[in-house]
């Protein structure tokens, strides 16, 4: 679309009273394709595994682009374990984190656009940082395969997403401690990127698919993209600042 067309399109949309919120990336309640309940139910096949597409209630922005259906099920279960839905605030899955991760991996970040991936490759010290030849998208693919193979081997033939909720946390702790046996990569390399991306999706602006409805920001009391405090910094010194958080889209 040329700039010119873009301008016209926006004008037309404005003219008929549709705001960009209706056409952009969904920030509303539409859940990712895999719902929380589905993710938590042990041994249930993810919806993508069905021959027929699921009911088209979801916005296009909620469709997994990179992960295969079994991978999506694993990541959804992982995110749900890292950030469960509880009395404190939104769960990672309802906040849209699996979709966030998927979309990051489907784009330039996933391909390692800003990484130096020339060889030779060698294992370094922790101080030397990441040294695998894998960009993030590949790291997930290999990591998920290793994780599930390890789970199947050590946990009654069950993949990670097939484990009961309590057992997932135990498995994840082993992964975090580097005690999971992975066939191809160091388990912590996978854990680290998973935790990092999960936190990014949970706390980032909703334009990226996570933090739906700014709910995570509301939970901690972060006003989001607003960033105009010249007057308020003095007025609210040592006082609670209550304001509905706003995303970039809300302010555009």
């Amino acid at each position, binding site marked *: 679309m040329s700039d010119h067309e873009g301008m016209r399109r926006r004008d037309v949309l404005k003219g008929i009273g549709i705001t960009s919120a209706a056409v952009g990336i969904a920030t509303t309640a539409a859940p990712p394709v895999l719902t929380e309940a589905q993710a938590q139910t042990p041994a249930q096949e993810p919806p993508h595994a069905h021959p027929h597409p699921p009911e088209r209630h979801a916005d296009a922005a909620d469709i997994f682009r990179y992960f295969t259906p079994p991978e999506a099920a694993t990541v959804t279960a992982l995110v749900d374990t890292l950030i469960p839905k509880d009395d404190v605030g939104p769960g990672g899955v309802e906040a849209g984190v699996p979709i966030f991760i998927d979309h990051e991996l489907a784009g330039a970040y996933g391909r390692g656009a800003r990484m130096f991936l020339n060889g030779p490759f060698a294992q370094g010290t922790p101080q030397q940082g990441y040294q695998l030849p894998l960009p993030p998208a590949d790291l997930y693919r290999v990591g998920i395969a290793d994780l599930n193979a390890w789970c199947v081997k050590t946990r009654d033939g069950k993949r990670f997403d097939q484990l009961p909720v309590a057992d997932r946390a135990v498995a994840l702790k082993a992964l975090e401690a580097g005690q999971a046996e992975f066939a191809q990569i160091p388990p912590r390399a996978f854990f680290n990127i998973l*935790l990092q991306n999960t936190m990014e999706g949970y706390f980032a602006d909703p334009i990226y698919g996570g933090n739906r409805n700014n709910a995570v920001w509301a939970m901690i009391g972060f006003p989001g993209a607003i960033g105009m*405090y010249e007057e308020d910094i003095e007025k609210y010194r040592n006082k609670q600042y209550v304001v509905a958080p706003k995303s*970039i889209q809300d302010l555009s």
Partner: protein
Amino acid sequence: MATKLKAADIVIVGLGWTGGILAKELAETGLSIVVLERGKPRDTNPDFAYPHVHDELKYAQRHELMQDVSRETLTFRNNSNETALPMRQLGSFLPGEGVGGAGVHWNGVTWRWLPWDHEPEKMTIARYGKSALPEGMQLQDWGVSYDELEPYYDKFEYLCGVGGKAGNLGGKKIDGGNVFEGARKRDYPNPPMIQTHAGDLFEKAARSLGYHPFPGPSANMTQSYINPDGVAFGSCHYCGYCERFGCEMNAKASAHFTVIPLAAAKKNVEIRTDSRVMKVNLDSSNKRAESVTYLDAAGREFEQPGGMVILAAYALSNVHLMLLSGIGKPYNPTTGTGVVGRNYAYQIGSGANVFFDEKTWMNPFMGAGALAMNIDDFNTGSFDHLKEGFIGGGGISTPSAGGRPIGFRPVPPGTPGWGTDWKRAVVRHYNHTLAVVNQGSVMGYRQNYLDLDPTYRDRYGRPLMRMTFDYQQNEQKQANYLADICVNIGNAMGAERVARRGAPQRYSIVPYQSTHNTGGAVLGTDPTRSALNPFSQTWDVSNVFVTGACSFPQNAGKNPTGPVGALALRAADSIKRYLKNPGPLAPV
């Protein structure tokens, strides 16, 4: 084959803070100037427009404005027994790329370094004697004293519209300012910033302990401002999207809207973006630079001849280009000979996280890059550090630079990293926590240096630069000593809990610490210990001048851009003298 272009009188490599300053100052000579910048053109509008610039993921996590390491990076090891491996993604430091350089996404903390930082060798030996220097430490003076640099510090502060409070006006100490600073001829151009509650708590606590708190010098405008060149600045709205972001208000001093447009408006200045300099070409005697070779966006190779060359490509890239071009003798840590790559240093961090009850509100999202309360009571020149067993010191502060939640989620030690308990702790502490931090000095050491990597090459086929660096005992003692002070300050605030952060065991290239890389092409009066003479001119190739923090023989307990800007302004005056009578400005 490179296309040979028409010669320019002056070729400047890099268009960040120092390249911008040099281009603007030297444009006055009327000589033809070509500036080569590897990155893209950028402007406040549209590149940093609100609200899109308030995007933590894009700018702070994905490094939109920073060096793309898929093209150029470096290798790193802690010591020469290890094999250096590439920095495969950005981490510890975040160099810039594109018009304005890292000065677009800096914080704006604009210090004058303390007089000690300019002449530590002289002052240490005078006070403690030569035997005070630990084994391997290569303490050395700049050959430029604080007093000599003072007029240029002043000029840079007015260029940037720095807000602050003087603590030493012409030798007269002023309460509420930094009483440890060197004497200044006049006050800052703007008043200090509005403090947050965190800053207030720091100030009261520090004062109660007998220290001398003062508001940090800030290039985030505390009111609208017009600098001496007629450039208008907006007023900071404490947006909290400052460090790692461009400023939508032109309220954070940056070369891209100050010196660079002034230079670009001159007929004799030509700026070429997407022009990545590969090396400087010397004549057969290696005594004179004749041209630079660069690649354009399409990868075409050009040779740009010039009467002189100024390296303004950031501390690390400057040293890399010198090593690739054979400007000056590379440093060899085994023999201790050679100068290029010598005395590379960084800073050391420590401090305390301070957790409060739920009735104390920090509102950490209200902040600005350079908003902080500080003390210099334990900085390099301010106290009897040798009595505590080390040389150097650090600046202690409570910054309020913004509390964006991907990066800022303080929880007490012992909190799990995920799960319901983690979430509860984040919610509990997000609005009720502050940090007291030490930014510690690091001296030059024989074993910490930069050279060319024997194995790894960049996308263009050039050897990567290799960084060999680790913390030494002297610095670890310092950081631990200052961490204790930070804890004391935290305790004096009446907090619920104070968590100490001690000295790091080893330097790691992984977590972000600061983009305060120093050394590698240092100033000095002795050509066997410095790559540059006190006029920023290379000893060996007199028509090459070098700017940036690579010039500092050791790192201080303060951010570098104050002296970087001041030195660039001074270099402009030195170059004007050189142009009248080309040749070495200091006897070799």
